């Protein structure tokens, strides 16, 4: 097996490069099921509560689209069902990691240096797959252990963990195949994510046609769910579904699919030249159009793909959340205890508004990721040396930075407002109050923007003043997510929760967002941004 020589060394290299990412992935994805178990046990303490919830949820088409079909009403089955998005998350992370360590390395030219050493032709691919497979196994282990410790049946907990891992393995292999097809890592990611999206869509169509009672028979198109890797792994029924037994052999099928795809990737990889893809690179125009003459035009070229992806993604999320909003009142209507809880949380303006505020706060934190990504394009341009070419021309630093920052400011704003608009329109149309719901949803989206601006401005301040510390901006976002998603359940001190700018934009139970904190956040963002720009004007470029 000389073609695999050096796999161990390359695996260690990949682990070294991902030493922050992998533990976060394994831990975060691994503990989500147990957090679901805790919240279900809290909200639906009795078997009767759970049966009622399951009956309503099984009728809700949007829930079926998001999570899959509900197979029963035990706590375990609710957790496995609600965690139905985890195979998609694992699949996405796995394909990204595999492409990062294969095609992206090759495109950057680093693979060439490695390839000239005593390392086998397939070692890079093998190492990437070892890392992705191992991370999924680690995630499964964390899930199985913490769910068992929580008191859920051990066999079922192992199966829940393996469900996500099996999807991860299949999509790691999909990523490996995609990485062989194109010369550009971006295009490979596009293909693999497209396969993931198609699998999800097939699973949605396959699951939607069936019975509306938990564990009832599937519809005529159920075969689509079996064909889809996402649907396939959900057919394990970890806590013994409708037939009364979990379907272990599904893992055999999933492993077979993964192995077959890996074999395809290895065969393609053995056949092609280093740096080349199987799909050819198209030629571009021999000269630039007359409009392509300013840093703004260049920034548009560099940012437009990202902008389009976020805008489309947020419009779709608006569609999903808007249609879920229609079901919120149904769900609660069946459960007096829950209605009381929600009424307390929702305050005077009602349940749906509380839901919208929660959803928009979550979207705000997600879109802050886009804002940070767009700001850090500046750093990527600097480190790659491309900024030097622009700054050695008659383009000053401020103008160069502004050309990118326009996208960091307007992109998230457009995505956020669009998500609010779509949510409001979809929900309003169903509820017969388009005007009111749209205004409320857009308002709920808009108040998140000052908090988004603070995180983007922090990234800019780091870029200008301490460019080596740019990862801190991602750490800040992770901190906000942690405080926002789990902080409220942990009874943390107010002082700590208040550190997150999103605490001040999310409507507190029974109240409305005060204007003063928004103004303060705006001023804070402006100060950080100004400090970053001043720092940028004074420092060396590039700063290694």
């Amino acid at each position, binding site marked *: 097996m000389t073609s695999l020589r050096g796999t161990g060394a390359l695996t260690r290299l990949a682990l070294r490069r991902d030493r922050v990412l992998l533990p976060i992935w394994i831990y975060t994805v691994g503990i989500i099921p147990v957090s679901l178990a805790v919240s279900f046990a809290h909200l639906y303490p009795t078997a009767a509560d759970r049966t009622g919830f399951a009956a309503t949820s099984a009728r809700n088409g949007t829930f079926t689209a998001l999570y899959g079909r509900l197979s029963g009403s035990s706590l375990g089955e609710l957790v496995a069902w609600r965690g139905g998005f985890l195979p998609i998350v694992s699949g996405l992370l796995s394909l990204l990691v595999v492409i990062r360590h294969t095609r992206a390395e090759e*495109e950057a030219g680093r693979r060439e240096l490695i390839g000239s050493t005593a390392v086998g032709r397939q070692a890079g691919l093998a190492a990437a797959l070892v890392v992705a497979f191992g991370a999924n196994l680690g995630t499964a282990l964390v899930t199985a252990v913490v769910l068992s410790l929580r008191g859920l049946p051990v066999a079922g907990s192992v199966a829940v963990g393996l469900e996500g891992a099996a999807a991860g393995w299949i999509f790691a292999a999909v990523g490996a195949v995609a990485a062989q097809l194109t*010369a*550009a890592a*971006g295009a490979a990611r596009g293909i693999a994510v497209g396969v993931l999206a198609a699998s999800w869509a097939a699973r949605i169509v396959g699951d939607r046609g069936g019975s509306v009672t938990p564990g009832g028979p599937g519809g005529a198109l159920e075969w689509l769910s079996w064909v889809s890797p996402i649907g396939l792994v959900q057919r394990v029924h970890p806590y013994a579904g409708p037939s009364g037994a979990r379907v272990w052999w599904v893992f055999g099928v999933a492993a077979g699919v993964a192995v077959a795809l890996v074999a395809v990737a290895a065969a393609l990889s053995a056949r092609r030249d280093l740096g080349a893809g199987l799909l050819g*690179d*198209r*030629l*571009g*125009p*021999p*000269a*630039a159009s007359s409009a*392509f*003459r*300013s*840093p703004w*035009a*260049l920034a548009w*070229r*560099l940012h437009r793909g990202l902008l389009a992806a976020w805008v489309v993604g947020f419009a779709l999320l608006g569609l999903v959340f808007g249609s879920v909003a229609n079901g919120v009142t149904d769900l609660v209507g069946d459960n007096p205890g829950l209605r009381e809880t929600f009424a307390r949380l929702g305050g005077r303006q009602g349940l749906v508004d509380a839901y919208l505020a929660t959803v928009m706060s979550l979207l705000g934190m997600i879109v802050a990721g886009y804002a940070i990504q767009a700001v850090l394009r500046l750093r990527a341009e600097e480190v*790659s*040396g*491309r900024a*030097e*070419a*622009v*700054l*050695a*021309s*008659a*383009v*000053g630093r401020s103008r160069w930075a502004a050309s990118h920052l326009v996208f960091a400011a307007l992109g998230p704003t457009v995505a956020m407002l669009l998500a609010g608009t779509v949510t409001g329109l979809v929900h309003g149309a169903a509820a017969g109050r388009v005007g009111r719901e749209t205004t409320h949803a857009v308002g709920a989206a808009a108040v998140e923007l000052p908090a988004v601006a603070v995180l983007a401005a922090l990234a800019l301040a780091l870029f200008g003043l301490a460019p080596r510390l740019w990862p801190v901006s991602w750490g800040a976002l992770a901190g906000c997510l942690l405080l926002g998603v789990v902080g409220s359940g942990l009874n943390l001190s107010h002082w700590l929760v208040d550190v997150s700018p999103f605490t001040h934009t999310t409507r507190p139970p029974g109240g409305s967002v005060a204007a003063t904190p928004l103004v303060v956040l705006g001023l804070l963002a402006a100060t950080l941004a100004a400090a970053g720009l001043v720092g940028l004007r*004074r420092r*060396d*470029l*590039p700063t*290694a």
Partner: protein
Amino acid sequence: MSDAIRADGLVKTFGATRALDGLDLTVRVGEVHGFLGPNGAGKSTTLRILLGLMRADAGRATVLGGEAWRDATALHRRLAYVPGDVTLWPNLSGGEAIDLLGRLRGGLDPRRRAELLDRFDLDPRRKARSYSKGNRQKVALVAALASNVELLMLDEPTSGLDPLMEEQFREVIREEQRRDGRTVLLSSHILAEVEALCARVTIIRGGRTVEAGSLDEMRHLTRTSVTADLTATADTAATAAGLAGLSGVHALSADGDRITFEVDAGALTPALARLAAAGVRGLVSRPPTLEELFLGRYDRGGDAPAWAPR
């Protein structure tokens, strides 16, 4: 204004590393100036300071009459820069990158662009991601050479080019000189290239200028190697002993009736007089190549040696 570039006592430190340590550089308007030094000597750092991308900790840098840091953007309209390691936007075609870089500087000559693409044999339709290092360098060179600017700053511009393209590059630079007398600062460690193109050079080492001046002058100030075959009747041993007694004669060796030595310019006349007195059958004398100048500087750890008064 006769100096296109003037740098005095530039100092630049990165943490504990002193990248530039009192570097001086003067480039006259209209000349092709060679900027020589081994890897890590501080050539690229100097260029970045001259471009106002980095700020010197001490010293002054003046480019085209303006202050390099303060007037950077305005100066960049009048100069073009080719970095040592050209990186391009992977999804732009070569042609788009050339046009963009040219336009960001204030425009480029379309006829010259077409001519250069042809001479450098570059396909402008290929996406930048598929270009080799040499092709990326050609993109930056075409964009720089086709720009209407007074000063070209080229950082090891031929390091990725094949010998044919290197020759083409030299040809183009010579034409530039003949046609409109543009100033060129050519950083390089390829001595033959500098020797072929530059009348004046600056040699740096460890962030410090060790030698600057015209090549002729430098040759004049350094040793010439001499091989003399004495006539059969001459007393080789005595002549050699006499030569050895002269200050400025080095590396002397005598073998049969052949004497070889190196001699400083100042000792050339007495040395030749001794040879003439002894009787010479054949004589070969060779001026030092740039390579010898270069090696001579580095062998001596950058301290100005006795034979090279500044």
